[in-house]
């Protein structure tokens, strides 16, 4: 052991900057957040320990409960549709031919995953504007009398955040599923052919069970990501939509950075961390139980 340590001492020197970075810019801020959540915030910084007062303030603010609720609803919607829907294009991608078309379609549906939220909102605010493509079609076909204000309506706020998030990630998730599909043994499908199974039966009894482990992985990634929703909600936030899509992460930003109420904002941040850790833990437990 000692010989090994001596032999490799320089490796420890190499890893020190990385560990130091994580300590200074992740663990230390995390600690600061917890520390600040127990402090009374002054204009120039924390001015003293006040126990759980910030937490009391957090939980007695109706806006916080609204934000927690918004976070959970958006996360549920994004996770449900973001996990289920991409299975369809994944199977479809395995079906289409020739190869160049398959690759082209892959490229196109993956592209939005690389776009920033600012660009996504910019693109869709054009297409979904009251005089845009979608509303023109809806009005001309007589489906609606008045153009729908997709980006400024309490009714559409949550569906918009969920829908655009699912749309942005659908290619990414479909390609993850596709990679799993390619590892499916063709002999199994051939055997099913001989037994006279229809295409739908093969999807139900062979393809979906084969995808299950990957579906669980995508479920966890999506769930954890969606609990942290910030960019999408923040960019779609306005007077008409705020109560529907102000997530807990957005609340901490508004309180801490714009109103400079560091104590309450930090406490809300800790609440968000705890909530997401609990949900992630529960999700892992449930998935593991089913496996056993």
């Amino acid at each position, binding site marked *: 052991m000692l010989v090994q340590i001596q032999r490799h001492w320089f490796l420890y020197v190499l890893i020190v900057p990385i560990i130091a970075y994580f300590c200074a810019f*992740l663990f230390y801020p995390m600690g600061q957040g917890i520390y600040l959540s127990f402090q009374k915030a002054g204009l120039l910084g924390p001015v003293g320990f006040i126990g759980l007062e910030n937490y009391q303030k957090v939980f007695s603010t109706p806006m916080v409960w609204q934000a927690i609720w918004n976070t959970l609803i958006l996360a549920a919607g994004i996770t449900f549709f973001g996990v289920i829907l991409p299975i369809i294009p994944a199977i479809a991608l395995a079906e289409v031919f020739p190869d160049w078309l398959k690759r082209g379609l892959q490229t196109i549906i993956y592209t939005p995953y690389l776009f920033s939220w600012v660009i996504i909102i*910019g693109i869709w605010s054009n297409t979904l504007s009251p005089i845009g493509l979608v509303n023109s079609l809806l009005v001309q076909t007589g489906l609606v009398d008045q153009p729908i204000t997709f980006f400024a309506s309490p009714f559409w706020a949550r569906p918009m955040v969920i829908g655009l998030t699912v749309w942005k990630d659908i290619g990414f998730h479909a390609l993850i599923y596709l990679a799993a599909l390619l590892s499916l043994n063709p002999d199994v499908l051939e055997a099913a052919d001989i037994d006279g199974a229809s295409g739908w039966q093969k999807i139900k009894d062979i393809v979906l069970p084969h995808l299950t482990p990957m579906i669980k992985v995508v479920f966890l990634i999506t769930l954890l990501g969606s609990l942290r929703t910030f960019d999408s909600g923040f960019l779609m936030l306005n007077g008409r939509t705020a109560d529907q899509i102000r997530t807990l992460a957005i609340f901490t930003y508004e309180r801490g950075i714009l109103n400079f109420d560091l104590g309450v904002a930090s406490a809300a941040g800790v609440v968000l961390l705890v909530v997401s850790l609990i949900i992630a833990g529960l999700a892992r437990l449930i998935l593991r139980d089913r496996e056993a």
Partner: protein
Amino acid sequence: MLRSRPITILSFIVLFVLAATMIVPLWSVAATAFSTKFGSLQPGVILWPNPWSLEGFDTLFRRLNFLLPFANTFYVTIVGTTLHVLLSALGGYVLAHEELPGRHIIAGIILLTLTIPSQVILVPLFVVFKQFQLLNTLLSLIVSELVSAFSILLMKTYFEQVPKTMIESARLDGAGHFKLLKDFYFPLALPGVVTVAAFQVVHKYNLFVEPLLFIRDPQKVTLQIALQSVILGESATSTNDFIAPNVTMAAIVVALVPLLIFYPFMQRYLIRGLTLGGVKE
């Protein structure tokens, strides 16, 4: 694969419809961007420049000074990605030594960072960056996510595939750590290195929350923030002037161009990285 005609036909339909939801909005953005100010304000759908004009781009660069955010973003992207790749490689290199005592502790610390997403610690991050006097500097954007657990683990996975015998013989010939990294690990694990770099380029180019949090100075504004203020119409060029759709859409086109040039070359690596990341999780 499924040998079912209805499913095959349905597959084509599903994918063409999905692809259309990506292509049509982008097409409409481009068509509006190349229209005149007056044309872009007309009600109705613009699927072709109406009439053709570069007015939007002219306003964007001449009057809104859109070059500055580009320069800032390129600087952050290039410097940030380079440092990120080097540090992640270093981390992956250390973790790839299976016989290193305490390797599990180091790996544990690195994995622990995955439980702290930056969106959760926005406020304390602001406080800490202020303490380190990083507010209002482009350096703050390079420092945030200077190295990440995801990249380190990806590098490690690729480095472990480099043949041990080759490394051993190079070491016997007297090659040190840096020479091993430079002459063996980097070239032999190049796909891994490029994957990390490609993801980081996209990440840095798209940075939004961090500059929103750390930067107030208009001289240090980055692309996504400038884009946001154009899209939300916050940066009217003068009091009786407002930003017409052709300018907004021109800004989107301009912001998309570098990404769309970069994407075809890096597609292989971006997709490989995500499937690898997905499988590893």
